[in-house]
């Protein structure tokens, strides 16, 4: 019985503790200020850098494909003109 009363009392305190100790909303701009203070890249900067890497790979791939095409065309021309000269 005593234990039951204790538990009931604790339940009441626990309910009030849960109502009092709740996560707070951080002041606006806090996280940005802290990022700047610690000099860390923000998540958006990290994402941007990652997308920049992707962009770089696409550009590099494009340049390589372009060069390959040019070399193939040059070889084809050389082959055709070379054959004309022999004939």
């Amino acid at each position: 019985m005593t234990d039951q009363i204790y538990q009931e009392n604790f339940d009441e305190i626990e309910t009030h503790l849960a109502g009092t100790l709740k996560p707070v909303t951080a002041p606006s701009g806090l996280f940005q200020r802290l990022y700047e203070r610690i000099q860390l890249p923000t998540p958006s900067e990290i994402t941007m850098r990652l997308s920049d890497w992707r962009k770089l790979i696409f550009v590099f791939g494009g340049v390589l494909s372009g060069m390959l095409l040019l070399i193939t065309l040059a070889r084809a021309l050389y082959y055709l003109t070379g054959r004309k000269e022999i004939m």
Partner: protein
Amino acid sequence: MTELDYNEEEILARASKGDRDAFGILYGHYVERIFNYVYYRTGNPHDAEDLTARVFQRAMNHIKNYTDRGVPFSAWLYRIAHNLVANWHRDRSRKQEIPLDDLPVLPTKGDHPERNLVRSQEQDALLRMIRKLPPERQNLLILKFVENMSNAEIGKIMGRSEGAVKSLYHRTLLALRDQLEDQNLNLEGE
């Protein structure tokens, strides 16, 4: 980065090699929780901001020394925060400061904004009582209610067994109940 992409082990390995982007991810993951912890331990949003920054600066400088010996990274961060808050209280007791009750109150999450602006007298009284508790009891209540941690998780942070945390929690509730009775504070009518 979504929770699914978040692989703490891998990120920690990168961060400990000096990768600032990896540390930035850890920071983004924990900053709000550390801020909440520090805010409730200090009751002061300005100092909570300053101390949160210092927690992460210290973590960044010492992350090479962090090795997972059964103590999760979060527990390591909370220990840093606990030590800095202890220093803050020591320094504060040496000089005259603004009383904590005069400082702005931050709104809590999930409640109606208007209701948030005014904290009830009972909640104020309870907060004052909590702040008068020994630091380890304050830690326990903050981690349990604000951070929603289990006794086992709290034990890892406080360096105690799950049973010891449970027992400390019981003693803390008893102490709070006795204080409430001493002050004739009625928590029923909110």
